[in-house]
Structures are given as structure tokens and as C-alpha cells.
């Protein structure tokens, strides 16, 4: 039997962001009429791969073919024209327009710019093909997320998409809604469509996929029929065996157990549910969980960025109610956010101004005049300490590499030894050298007595740096564990088990 032409074919595909390689020589065929799962640890490159197929990222190396033809140039529009659509984690629908209007947005029937108003009629064949029951004149705002995803699927079909890439589509769905999405995928397959299913929910992948591709650290481990895989085989492949180990700095010894931060059954408007944990002085404590598991939200609730609805926070044994970011900073509790561009740095300011922004009062007279010389020398010290390159206090932050921006971000919050630090993904998108320096700085900080709460999607990092760790899922804090001697596999399996115990993932 002759093999059919793959819908999407990748050969030797690599991708790097600002010199950091996130995908390397990936060979992959996505066959027509299959549901193809992409799995891997956080940061393994599965979302990146999905976005490459959908035209959102250009490839750095290798070749990409769609339906047997070279895909070059390859923008989202090119992809869509050729029949490949991508469904983002955050849906891109216009909330105030109706279902029919959204489905045909941009491809409306019109005469001389006047709408013909045929959207509802045009919707009928799509509804029949998919079997989705939705009111074509309902507004998007009034629909559930699962229904909105259906609209997104119909929108892709209205553009004759034959391949739909779904990037973590179930992360905000209840178990029931997930089931319905799976039905949708099967219907698509029955009508000859292809689905690329990116997810970290292994059960879901095993349930509907025909084939699965496993990625690890930007490398493709294998593509195999789903029937021959099970959860264990997937997890072991995701982790791999002989990964080159990063050397982590020695963990400082804790002399006395002096409580720095204690959180008692804290709940919040952002989905934190009765979280309890504590951090001692000089201790690095990791929060381990999957992306979307509510780790960042817990940090935000504690520091006062989001409103709490219950529970209490004790700092050095004293209750700290009425929390706000300004008050937390004043008390020496700081948070280094995960997204340096959107939450951490002001991209229009120079390096020095960024670093000193939250501490300006300590570089200024009571009347607010900035003591430029002190500010400069302290910034220079911090830059040297973190080995920021280039070491220019007045450099334009926009022109720095990701790793050096990240060092500036850390330097900003750590230059005045804080009491308690929350680190959210402190080494995301950073090359190995910068990562090493960042790890050392975190260890030094704890060595000087600061309490550190660490969130990282890289298990290796959390396990390598932390004295203790907690498992987090669904906005809740679960079991405490000591990283010493634990393998990533054990921890990952424990996490997937948690996920299974509480299947209603984040359906608040």
C-alpha cells in the first residue's frame, strides 16, 4: 500500500530564541486523519512545535512542508490559507459579536463593502458536519469556554482548515467539558480532519490520540502509535535517562528553624484554595506543579497582588493582614515575576533606573532628589555581582539579551537583601551560563538568611535548589517532600497522580 502524503512534514527543524535553542533537529510527520498528541515536560518545546506548525514561529533550521509543498514563507495567514489553523490557549474571539459573525470574521460575504448577511446560512453546513449544537445568534460572552472552543473549531473549518493545532485546550475545562472536546476531535477525524493535540494531561492524550510524539529538552524522543504507550512509558520518555546534569550550588545548612513566613489555609479570588505552607529563614522552598496549577496565583495572593478571601499570613510569627504590594515591599517581601517583559521590567527605562525603581527612597533625599552618585555605584555593584553583560549602568534594557534582562530583574529585587523572596521562574528562557549565575545568587541569598519561595517549571531546578518542596495542583498545596534523593520521575508521577485524584482541574 502506498503511503499517503503527510499533512505536515518537518525535517531537521530547530528553533532558538535570542541564542537559546528550544528545539533541535525535529523530524516529524503528521498524517492526514489522525489525532496526533505532543507531550513533554514544561519547556520541552511542545507548544513551540505547535506554534511552528501554525505559522506563529518561524523555524531557525530545517524544512517544513505542508501537504507535500514547502511551507515558506510561513505566517499564520499562510498556514490558514493552506488549511492549517491553530487554536490558542487563550481563545481569540470577539466577545461582543455573535457566533455566526465570529465564525466568518474576515471572510464575510459582501458586495461593495455591504454585508450580505448570509452568515447564518453559511454556518448550517458546518454545524451539520460537526454536529455542534450552538445558537448562531448567541453572543460569545454568553457562552461557556467549551462552547467557545467549538466556535474556534468552526472558525477553522469555515476557512477549510484540514489540520487544527490545539495548544493545551483543556487547561481551563472541567472533566465533562474535556470529554465534549474529545468528542469534537473524534468528529473532526471522522470527517477527514487532522488534529495536533498539545497537552500535559497524559490521560487525555492516551484517550483520544492515534499517535503521540514525545519531546524532551527540545529533542524529539520518539513518535509512536498511542496504542503501544501507557502513562509510565510516556513519563520515562519525557524524563529520559542520561541527561547532562547541571551542577547546583551546595545547599546551605539551616542552623535554627526560625519561621519567616507562614501561610494558613489561604484562599483568594485568583483560585488559591486553602493553601497552607511555611518557609523558614535561610530556607529555599519549592512549589512544584504543572503550568496552570495555581503556583503563581498562590504567590500573588500571599504578597497582596490579588485579593484574599480567607486564611491568614504570618510574617516572622506576626499576622500580616491587609496586604498590598507596596506594604509587602516595605516589609522586605518581594516577588520576582515570571514574565520579565510584561511584569518585571520597564522596557523604556535604562538598566540603572529599572534596578533602583522599587528602592528609590533609599537613594533619595527626603525631598525626593535622587542621589545620582550613590544610585550609580550601588547599581554598578549589583551589575558586577550578577555579571550583567554589558556592564553599563545606563544601558538601554531593550537591547539586552533575555538572560541579561533576567539578571537585571533579579538584581533589582535582590540588591537590598530582602527578608522574603518569591521567585517565579527565575531562569526561564536563559542560557546555561546565566542560569548558573542565577542559581548561585539564589543560594547565596538564602545563605545570608533570606527566606526563598521558588516556583519553577523545571523540576531539576526546584529539586536541585530547594531544601524542601510542596506539591501544588489546582490552587491547592498538597504533600510536602524533601528533594534530597528524589528523582524527577518520582516527583512527576506524584504530580500526575494528584491530577488524577482531582480531575476537575481548575474548574472553579
Amino acid at each position: 500500500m502506498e503511503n499517503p502524503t503527510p499533512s505536515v512534514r518537518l525535517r531537521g527543524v530547530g528553533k532558538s530564541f535570542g541564542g537559546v535553542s528550544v528545539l533541535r533537529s525535529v523530524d516529524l510527520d503528521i498524517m492526514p486523519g489522525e489525532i496526533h498528541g505532543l507531550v513533554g515536560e514544561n519547556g520541552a518545546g511542545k507548544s513551540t512545535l505547535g506554534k511552528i506548525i501554525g505559522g506563529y514561529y518561524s523555524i531557525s533550521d530545517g524544512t517544513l512542508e505542508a501537504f507535500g509543498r514547502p511551507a515558506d514563507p510561513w505566517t499564520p495567514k499562510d498556514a490558514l490559507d493552506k488549511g492549517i489553523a491553530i487554536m490558542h490557549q487563550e481563545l481569540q474571539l470577539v466577545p461582543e459579536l455573535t457566533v455566526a459573525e465570529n465564525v466568518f470574521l474576515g471572510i464575510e460575504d459582501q458586495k461593495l463593502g455591504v454585508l450580505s448577511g448570509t452568515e447564518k446560512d453559511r454556518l448550517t453546513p458546518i454545524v451539520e458536519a460537526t454536529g455542534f449544537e450552538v445558537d448562531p445568534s448567541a453572543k460569545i460572552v454568553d457562552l461557556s469556554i467549551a462552547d467557545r472552543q467549538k466556535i474556534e473549531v468552526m472558525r477553522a473549518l469555515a476557512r477549510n482548515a484540514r489540520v487544527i493545532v490545539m495548544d493545551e485546550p483543556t487547561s481551563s475545562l472541567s472533566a465533562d467539558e474535556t470529554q465534549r472536546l474529545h468528542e469534537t476531535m473524534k468528529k473532526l477525524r471522522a470527517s477527514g480532519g487532522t488534529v495536533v493535540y498539545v497537552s500535559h494531561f497524559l490521560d487525555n492524550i492516551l484517550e483520544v490520540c492515534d499517535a503521540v510524539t514525545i519531546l524532551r529538552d527540545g529533542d524529539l524522543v520518539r513518535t509512536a502509535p498511542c496504542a503501544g504507550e501507557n502513562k509510565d512509558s510516556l513519563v520515562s520518555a519525557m524524563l529520559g535517562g542520561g541527561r547532562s546534569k547541571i551542577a547546583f550550588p551546595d545547599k546551605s545548612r539551616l542552623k535554627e528553624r526560625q519561621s519567616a513566613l507562614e501561610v494558613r489555609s489561604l484562599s483568594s479570588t485568583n483560585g488559591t484554595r486553602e493553601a497552607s505552607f511555611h518557609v523558614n529563614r535561610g530556607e529555599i522552598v519549592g512549589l512544584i506543579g504543572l503550568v496552570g496549577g495555581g503556583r503563581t496565583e498562590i504567590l500573588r495572593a500571599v504578597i497582596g497582588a490579588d485579593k484574599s478571601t480567607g486564611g491568614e499570613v504570618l510574617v516572622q510569627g506576626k499576622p500580616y493582614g491587609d496586604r498590598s504590594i507596596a506594604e509587602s515591599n516595605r516589609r522586605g517581601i518581594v516577588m520576582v515575576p515570571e514574565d520579565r517583559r510584561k511584569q518585571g521590567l520597564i522596557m523604556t527605562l535604562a538598566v540603572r533606573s529599572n534596578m533602583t525603581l522599587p528602592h528609590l527612597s533609599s537613594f533619595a533625599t527626603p525631598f525626593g532628589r535622587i542621589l545620582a552618585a550613590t544610585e550609580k555605584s550601588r547599581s554598578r555593584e549589583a551589575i558586577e555581582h550578577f555579571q550583567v553583560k554589558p556592564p553599563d549602568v545606563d544601558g538601554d534594557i531593550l537591547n539586552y539579551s533575555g538572560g541579561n534582562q533576567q539578571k537585571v530583574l533579579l538584581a533589582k529585587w535582590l540588591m537590598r537583601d530582602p527578608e522574603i523572596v518569591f521567585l517565579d521562574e527565575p531562569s526561564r528562557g536563559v542560557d546555561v551560563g546565566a542560569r548558573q549565575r542565577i542559581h548561585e545568587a539564589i543560594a547565596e541569598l538564602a545563605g545570608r538568611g533570606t527566606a526563598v519561595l521558588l516556583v519553577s517549571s523545571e523540576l531539576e531546578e526546584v529539586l536541585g535548589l530547594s531544601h524542601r518542596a510542596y506539591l501544588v495542583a489546582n490552587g491547592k498545596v498538597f504533600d510536602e517532600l524533601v528533594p534530597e534523593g528524589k528523582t524527577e520521575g518520582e516527583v512527576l508521577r506524584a504530580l500526575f497522580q494528584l491530577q488524577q485524584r482531582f480531575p476537575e482541574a481548575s474548574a472553579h
Partner: protein
Amino acid sequence: MKEFLIKFQRYPLTWIVLVACLIALTISALSPYFLTVNNFTNLMKQVSIVAILAAGQSIVIISGGIDLSVGSVLALTAVTIGWLVQNGVSPEIATACGVAVGTFAGFINGIVIAKGKIPPFIATLGMLGIARGVALVITGGVSYQVLTPLFLFIGNGKLLGFPIPIYFVIVAYAATHFMLSRSRFGRHVYAIGGDEHVSRLEGINVDGRKIAIYALSGFFSAVAAVVMVGRLASTPPNVAFGIELQAIAAVIIGGISFAGGRGIVLTSFVGALIMAMITNGLNILGVSSFWQQVLIGIVIIAAVWVDNIKSARRR
């Protein structure tokens, strides 16, 4: 030396000053009268009011906002002074009260923007109507004569050979420049304009800063009003109608980013000067004032276009 040259080249003032010189040379080549002391003194007097307003407007625009109400607040301040003087209040106290009223109007702008979460464009558009309206209500549409020595001195007096309004401009720009480049408040203005969300996460009191920024813009409008009362020796309630657009144009021509977060205030003075030179120069050359508007419109668009090209290259 090379480093110095790069810094010099990058300094926002360098290019705009060159452009201003080029314009001055062009016009003076066409008319010998343009580059005379007399004409330049005149020019400085003409530019002073827009320049003072542009200083306040610069702070607002760097913070990512806009203040459309400056002309009306100027008028409100002027009639407050005129009305008080008319009713026998001493000119000094009347001036202090007028400045307080102008600052208060700006403060209200700030409250509405920061606490009411109303976009600056809309909030100050409202104040544009309110302040002008109140000015008309107070006076019933009548203009008061203000022929006191204080205002005659401000309008016509000289110090060391320079007209008094120039000193107002110098103090306004020196103070604003110091504030923006050397003070905590100034740093926060840049931070808020660069990224308001991040600024909040840093623990900056964004709302308080915004209130202060708009109050300051009101204060500068009031200071401009004092100069205006001096020059006119009267307080017509329809004074400075539409001047807010000139102040905004001066800031934009100077090169402060309309998106906020970037730029220095001194360029706004040069921007105001360029506009005044075009008007003044074309007057001398006998070009119709209708054409002057066309030219200034082109200059505004060209200034931002050039700026876009420059910043695109930087990335």
C-alpha cells in the same frame, strides 16, 4: 571621544536643535530682519505662553497621558485674577488665588483619571468644557481690565535687557528638567509612562502620582495665565482658545514619545520655538497665515515619522 560622540548623537536635544538652527538659517537667508535682536525678543515673548504650557504637557505625555484642558484652565485662572482685581483684591493675592484655582482644576483632572479610571483624553476633554464654561459664567462673557503695576511689569518690563516672560520660561524648564531627571517623582513619571502595570507591581503609588502630574499641569497652565494677563493687561474669558493643540504639537515636534516613557522636557521648548519661528518667519516673508497652518501640520507629522524611523533602527 568616540563614546562622547555617540552619546551626543543619541541625546534627544541634539537633532531637534539642529533642525531649529536649520530653520532659523533658512528664514534669515530669505529675510535679513529675522535674525535681529528685536525680532528675537519679540519671538521669545510670543513663544513664552505655549512654551510654559508645553512644559506641563510634557510631564503629562511622558506619563502616558494627555491634557486637553490647559487652554481652558489658563482662561479660568485669568478671569479669576481679573475678577478679584476688579473687586479690589490686591494683584498679588489675586494671582495667588488664580494659581490655586488653576492647580485645583488640574487636581480634579487627576482625581477623575486616577480614581474614576476615566481615560485622560475624556477626563480633560470634559475639563476643557467645564473650565471655559466657568470662566464665562464668572464674567458673564465680559473682559476685565487689569492695569496694575505688577501685570504691566510682567507684560512689558525687562530685566537685564530681556523681557520678563522669558524668565518664567527659563524657571519653568529648569525646574521641570530637574524634577524629571533628578527626582524620585520624575523617575516615577517615566516608569508609569513606560509601563503602568509594572509600576504598580513595583509598589509605586500610581494613582497618587497621576493626581500630582495633572495638578502640576494645571499649575503650569495657571503660570502661563499670569504671563498672559500681563501681556494683554486684561482677562477676556475666550483667551487662549485652542492653545492646547499648540502645546501638544510643541511636545510632539520636540520628540517626546506620544506613547509615553521616553523623552526630555527641553525638547518641548525647541518644539515650541520651531512653531513660533515658522509663524514669525512666514509673517516676515509675507506668506498668508493660512499657509502657515498647513506647514505646521506637515511639520508635526514629519517629526513623528522621523522619530519612528529612528526608533525602528534602534531595535
